[in-house]
Structure formats: C-alpha cells, structure tokens
C-alpha cells in the first residue's frame, strides 16, 4: 500500500490557499492493547462538507471523539481553528468548544427537557440574552431545521426518529457554530427522510456558511452533499479527496465499498447520468 499521507496531503497541496479548520497530524489512539488509529493525517477546510467513511471498527467514531476531546490521544496533534487544544487554558478551551456544534448519532437530546429547552441550553449557559430573544431564536432554529412550532414544547421521547435528529441539529446550531460534526446523521432514517435530511444539511451549510465534518455510511449522502470524502481503513486515511478521485482508487476496501453489490449499483447509476443530472454540490467559498 502506498503511503497514506500522500493522499491526504495531496488534497491540501491542490488547494494551497484554503483555510484549514481542523488539522490532524500523526494521530495515534488506542485502548488497552489495541491501537485503533495509527498515525492518521487529515485536513478539513473552511466551508467544505467532508464525509468520513470507513468500515465498522476502523476508527471513524474514535477519530471524531478524539477531535472533540472525548477520547485522549496517545500521540500526534490535533489543531482546531489553528489552536492546539491541549495547550489551551480551560477558559479558552470552553470558548473554542462554543464554536462548534455536534449532532450525536442518537441525538443525545436531554430527555428531561423539552425540545425548546434543549435548543436554549447552550444559549442559556454561555450567553447573556433575554428570555424573549432566546424563545425567538429557539423557534427560528426549529423552523430552520424544518420542525413544526408545536414540537417546541414536546419532550424528546414524544418525537419520531427523524424529528429527534432535526431537534438535535437545531441544538447543535444554537450558537451559530462555524464547524458542525455530524455522526451518521441519516442512520435510522427512511430513504425519503434521509434524502430530506441531506438536503437540509446542504441548505444550512450554504446559508450559515458552515464547515461540516460528517461521519457516514450512507453512499447517497456522499454523492449528494459531500465536497470531499476521506476514507478510513487500517487506522489511517487511505484516501481523501473529491469523490471522483476515490472512485478511481485501487484500494481493495474502496473498490468493495464503491463498486461492491450495493455501492456498485448506485455508482453506476450516478455515473451514467453524470453529465445530464448529477453535479457535485455547489459550495460557498
């Protein structure tokens, strides 16, 4: 196998003047005797939607959690917004954490609070604004993610799966973050709901100028909204770049992923109609 970092850095070299928002260098993470992430390199650029793919157990979630600071790294460096988080004072770290929003896989809405209170939670804790404005902003966010106003006073247990994801997205967007992490946003949604959610992420990314780091299994999401895709295998980024370059890769896992039974059908269909219909999602830059 060729050196993985040439792929990752190759993407960076092609766009030398783009702003790097997350940079991961030689990251090593392990638990006990098992090393899951072995010298991983990855860059996320401002204003892009990066899709992270990889088989189960290849370290997608661990990588996300390490970037978020939920899992300690054994080695390497993670810089977010150009800052090394480990070197920051606690107060500075909290400010940094207010600049991102996270959508957890199962929503992670606080079950004892209504949807509106969930959305207001980050505002209430970190901003000094009036109740009236907080109410209005929560309702605005609710509308942005496509939830009806009467969802505001419901408890998370009263929502359907798709609504939970939307409400959790609204909470992730509560402080207007620059960077949003999405952990398998379309998992557990039906194809129509998943397509709608992809579209929603795309629209929000454009209107709010977000950078999106999206862990996904969903090939449709990759095709419809990702600007760049990073593939994880064997604890490294085996390829990163626009989807077209990944489709041409010789790596056995990528071949199986994109040209296997399920992926192959979709890839063939997309490629056939490429010229007429399918265009890479437009991006704001």
């Amino acid at each position, binding site marked *: 196998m060729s050196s993985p970092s040439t792929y990752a850095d190759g993407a960076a070299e092609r766009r030398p003047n783009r702003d790097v928002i997350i940079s991961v260098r030689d990251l090593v993470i392990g638990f006990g005797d098992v090393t899951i992430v072995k010298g991983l390199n990855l860059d996320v650029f401002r204003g892009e939607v990066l899709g992270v793919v990889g088989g189960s157990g290849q370290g997608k979630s661990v990588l996300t959690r390490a970037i978020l600071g939920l899992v300690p790294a054994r080695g390497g460096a993670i810089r977010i917004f150009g800052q090394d988080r480990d070197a920051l004072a606690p107060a500075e770290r909290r400010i940094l954490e207010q*600049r991102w929003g996270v959508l957890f896989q199962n929503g992670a809405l606080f079950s004892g609070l209504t949807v509106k209170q969930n959305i207001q939670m980050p505002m209430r804790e*970190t901003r000094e604004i009036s109740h009236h404005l907080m109410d209005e*902003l929560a309702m605005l966010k609710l509308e942005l993610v496509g939830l009806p106003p009467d969802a505001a006073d419901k408890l998370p247990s009263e929502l359907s799966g798709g609504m939970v994801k939307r409400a959790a997205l609204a909470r992730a967007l509560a402080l207007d973050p620059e960077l949003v992490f999405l952990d398998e946003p379309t998992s557990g949604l039906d194809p129509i709901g998943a397509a709608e959610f992809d579209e929603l992420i795309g629209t929000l990314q454009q209107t709010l100028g977000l950078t999106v780091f999206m862990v996904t299994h969903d090939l449709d999401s990759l095709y419809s909204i990702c600007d760049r895709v990073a593939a994880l295998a064997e604890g490294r980024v085996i390829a990163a770049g626009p989807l077209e370059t990944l489709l041409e890769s010789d790596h056995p896992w990528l071949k199986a992923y994109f040209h296997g039974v399920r992926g192959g059908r979709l890839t063939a269909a997309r490629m056939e109609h490429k010229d007429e219909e399918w265009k890479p999602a437009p991006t704001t830059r």
Partner: protein
Amino acid sequence: MTVAAIERPPNLTRQSSPEGARLSLSGDWTLVASHRLEAAAARIVEEASRDRMIIFDLAQVSRLDTAGAWLINRARHELARRGVAVALEHVRPEYSTLLEEAHYRAFEAPARPRFKLVFVLLSDLGESTVGALREFYRGVSFLGEFVASMIYVAQHPKRFRFTALVAQIELICFRSVPIIVLINVLVGGIVAQQGIFQLLKFGASSYTVSLIGILVLRELGVLLTSIMIAGRSGSAITACLGSMKMREEVDALLVMGLSPMEVLIAPRVLGLVIALPILTFVADMAALFGGMIVSWWYGGISPVAFASLLKEAIALHTFLVGIIKAPFMALVIGLIASMDGLETKGSAESLGQQVTSSVVKSIFMVIVMDGLFAVFFASIDY
C-alpha cells in the same frame, strides 16, 4: 460563565444628510456579543423611530449570524409598524441569504390553558383515585393470569422451566442470606436490649425472652425479610423485565408464540414464593440468636435459661404464623414487580419510575397484608 471575548462589539452611528437619514451598522452582530447585541438592536429602533425613511448601511458589519440577522429584521419590522420605511444597503451576498432566512415572523406561543388551583387539585385527586382503582383492577387480573398459567403449567409440567426457577432461587434466596442474617441479628439484639432495659423497672426482665420470641416469630422476622426482599429482589425483577420490555425482548417472546407469563414471570414469582419462607426461617433464627446474645451479655440470662424460657413462651403456632405469611408476601412482591416491569415504556426514565413505584408499592402492600393477617389470626384465635 465563559463568554468569548468580542473584538468588535456591535455598534451603529447615525448620519443625517439631505437625502435622508442613514444608520451605519458596524462590528460583529453575533450572539457572542450577548446582551450588547440586544442593546444595539434596541438602539436601532430608538434612533430611527422619528424618521419617515431610513437606510441601514451594512458595509461595516464584520460578522453576522442568525441572532444578529434576526434582531436586525425584528428592528425593521418594529420600525415598519411605526410607519418608518427601511432600506438596506451594502449587504454582502452571504448576509442577504442569512437575512432572508431569518426574516421576521411572529412565533405565537401555543396557548397553554390555565386553571384555578382548586380545579387542578380536584382533578389530580380524581385522577389518582381512578388510577389507584385501575391499578388494583389490573393487579387482580394479573393475579388471575398468573394463576391460570400456573394451572396450565401444572398440567404440562414438562413446559416448566426448572433451570430458570433454580437460577431465581439462587439469586433471591441464597444470595440474600448474608444481609438477611445481618439485619435480623441486629434487630433481635435491639429488641432484647430495649426489653431488658424497660422490663427491668418492673423486675420482669426474664419476660424479655417471651417478648423476643413472640415478636420475632410472629411479626418481625417475616416483615423485615419481606421488606428487604421487596427492595432487593422486587426492584431487580422490575428492572430486568423493564429493560427486556424496552429492548422489545418481551415482544420477541410473544411473536414466537411464547407467553412472557410462563417464561419470565412464573420462574421469578415461584422463586420468590419458595425463597421467602426459607429466608423467613433464616431471619427468625438470626433474630433469636441476636436476642440471645444480647440477653446473655446485657441481661445476664444464660443461653440455657434463654432456651428454656423460650420453650415456655412459644408454641409451634407462633412460628407458623410467621411462616404462613411468607409465601403470600412473596406473591404480592413478585406480582407487583412483574406487573410494573412489563408496564415500562420506551425510555430509561420510565424504567427508573417503574422500579421506584414497584418498590414503594410492594413495601406498602407487604405492610397492609401483615395488618390483614394480624386481624385474621386474632379473629380465629391462632
């Protein structure tokens, strides 16, 4: 509270020229500015409310987020309501999408009905009464279901799960012995100490032995054991069945054509029914032992004297009164625990509520049952 330092607070300056008034907004119009953002938005309305027409110049706005866009739009709406025409100038393309997305609309809060306290109180009272009656009805029908499935099992003994029953007996009975022995030794000792201390005033400290014997065998042994088991095993049964219900395991049994009553509940309830008399016996012995030790050490009644006094004070029926109650207590605990477990809804809070309610209800019912038995035994003179 940590708020990011803001380099360019939101600001506005007013310029009046012959063509009309201009408000030029500058700085970061973002939520990071917190209350300063709201103050700035309030100032917009203040500054412009006397004009007929005004231009907002957004050229100097360095950053804008949904909160800023919302507040600017709200100010525009407020001014429009007062008859001031507002025009925007020098809006960057990315800001105009944001301003459009956050256009002003009134979010009417869904009307929440408000009632007088008396009505709320009365309706709560009614609701809980009906709830309690319904609960009782469900309990009785659950008991019926249980008995029916027991009869079925008696006719088809091969279908009964003896392995599960043995496992339950180990969990409920064998593993509870240390704690049951411990609390009963202590309680026996405390009763003995108090008895000796109080009865000494009348020079009747030897009656302590009758006190311990009758009190422990008739009431305390079975009551303490039942309460302990309600807390220890009742809660475990509710939690186990509740989590199985949450993960659809109970539904999986149903669609396989198996009855949860037979597979899950029968071994547990039967396990309790077998375990509780055994544990009651253990508890009785432990309490008598505790009483004997304290009588010897504190009251100077030797174990030999204790034994002969005890023999005079109690008869077999004293012991039987306690033991007879045990299986009934077990049935009550087991049925309440199983019923509450199966009523768990999908969420973790619901599981917690069910476990709490199961323990509270079974301890309450154990004490009520004990009272009923006291009345019953008194009236048949046993």
